[in-house]
């Protein structure tokens, strides 16, 4: 249960083509993350899978069955929305039980399932409250509870953590990953946050302007980005790009070096520069460096690296950690 196939799926709103044609295979039980900058079509793609939008052309298969023209209710998927989308006039218990009620499940079974979901999500003591009386994190858990009671073929998450504060976001991230380990159900998760993508996904789908740029495991994308866009998008802080003479010497139009892949020295190296801002975080040090050749790059050193604003510094890429890109952006 829960294998999803997209075959040349296209979507236009009027004259605007949002998804110019996507082919994608999602295996049963996989945690797939759609990631990309805002407006890249990742949410639209999720809504097409959910059935909340009609495809313009192409086919969507769930477990081999063509559901392209089926309504959202018929697809057996559950969705968690960014705004939680809880029913404000119902108690938490009724919210979670709503899909079961719609499926006309016997009351006793409904209650058993709601109690089980509440236990998994630590919502036992809030079941009689209204959504308005809950905190953001609790509301998010109710939304997840409403999704899991149905035992859907797959879960769809539309930026579920973006309304939470940073600390809670980290917690919920772990909780959702944990839930996936327990349920082993297919999950499709949309986010613009590459950290969420890297930490949660079995498989990341990087999207730009409605096109899939690359599909792969987090480390695949980190280690061998297919193009400059993916290289720049995955990893934090972002990959540094250097063009011109230095790149040409290495036989590429541009080269990319991740901040954590610089060797730094105060005496010698390949790229001399001047420290702009130095962020000493204790665990590591982030240096914003203006190279003598004009580029601004970020370098990250583990632990403390004792330089300050205005100091001279030399950066050298670690061996085998230079990504080469052609003029069209593809990896060379």
């Amino acid at each position, binding site marked *: 249960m829960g294998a999803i196939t997209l075959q040349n799926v296209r979507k236009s709103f009027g004259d605007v083509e949002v998804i110019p044609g996507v082919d994608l295979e999602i295996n049963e039980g996989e945690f797939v993350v759609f990631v990309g900058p805002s407006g890249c079509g990742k949410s639209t793609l999720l809504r097409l899978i*959910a*059935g*909340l939008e009609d495809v313009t052309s192409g086919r969507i298969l769930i477990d081999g069955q063509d559901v392209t023209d089926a*309504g*959202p*209710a018929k697809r057996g*998927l*559950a*969705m968690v*929305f*960014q*705004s939680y*989308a*809880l*029913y*404000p*006039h119902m108690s938490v218990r009724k919210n979670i039980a*709503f*899909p079961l009620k*719609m*499926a006309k499940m016997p009351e006793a079974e409904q209650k058993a399932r709601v109690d089980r979901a509440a236990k998994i999500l630590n919502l036992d003591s809030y079941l009689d409250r209204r959504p308005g009386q809950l905190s953001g994190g609790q509301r998010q858990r109710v939304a997840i509870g*409403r999704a899991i009671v*149905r035992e859907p073929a797959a879960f769809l998450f539309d930026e579920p953590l973006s309304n939470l504060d940073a600390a809670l976001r980290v917690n919920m991230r772990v909780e959702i990953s944990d839930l996936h380990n327990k349920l082993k159900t297919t999950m499709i998760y949309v986010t613009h946050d590459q950290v969420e993508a890297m930490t949660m996904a079995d498989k990341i789908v990087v999207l730009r302007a409605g096109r899939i740029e690359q599909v792969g495991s987090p480390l695949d994308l980190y280690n061998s980005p297919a193009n400059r866009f993916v290289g720049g998008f995955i990893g934090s802080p972002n990959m540094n790009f250097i063009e011109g003479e230095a790149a040409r010497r290495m036989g590429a139009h541009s080269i990319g070096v991740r901040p954590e892949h610089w060797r730094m020295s105060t005496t010698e190296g390949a790229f001399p520069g001047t420290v702009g801002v130095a962020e000493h975080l204790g665990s590591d040090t982030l240096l914003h460096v203006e190279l003598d050749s004009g580029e601004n790059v970020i370098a990250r050193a583990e632990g403390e690296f004792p330089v300050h604003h205005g100091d001279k510094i030399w950066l050298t890429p670690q061996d085998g950690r230079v990504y080469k890109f052609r003029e069209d952006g593809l990896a060379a």
Partner: protein
Amino acid sequence: MARAVSTQTKIGWTIAAWVVALLIFFPILYTVITSFKTEQEAIAGFDLIPSFTLQSYGEVQTQNDYIRPFTNSVIIAVGSTILALIVAIPAAWAMAFAPTKQTKNILMWMLSTKMMPAVAVLVPIYLIFLNTGLMDTRIGLVIILMLMNLPIVVWMLYTYFREIPGEILEAARMDGATLGQEIVHVLTPMAVPGIASTLLLNIILAWNEAFWTIQLTTTNAAPLSAFIASFSSPQGLFWAKLSAASTMAIAPILIMGWFSQKQLVRGLTFGAVK
């Protein structure tokens, strides 16, 4: 914005507001006062102190039974309102949550029908009523008043529905709700305050409707608005009796309006300030 206002200014404005309110309310008040006068007092000239006789009320009741038009008014006002809501809720749903390029135009067109003088369509509607046997029936009035107020009901509901986040309805769809279940279990309960004020306002509009009720009824289906009118024409100068009839006709709706004024004000100003 809070601004310092001197006590003097406040008193001044308060007095002015009371004066204006009294001026507006005075005709109604004088009608009520006149209803407690004898006919002689009523034509004698301006006098604010009646003799507090119930004579006119008694005569109104014996001459023309109050209970039947009252029942008719209730049935017509409530019936047309409920019917309008049943039609308007799905219509407003469609316009608020599944708009097309023409939605705005349709809404404007619906509203524009309210700008047409009712008398312009009197003849065709009169003939339709004659030929279909709807003349002087409650069901006929329920239908015509429902149609007359439908644009306003759709507009009000549309405004309320637009405040409801579409994602919640999408969540209901994902949870397996059919369109009907989505409207019944999710949209309607969430819009209860809006639906309630729409309902109240429409009952008042239907209750006060006089043009169609007078034109399309004779005796059987005549509501209170026609009941008042029946006292005005043939017996032109019996002011006390006419006042008594008017008081009896407006009292129920005034009382209802008084108790629901909070809802009504919220309804009429909804969306003005977010």
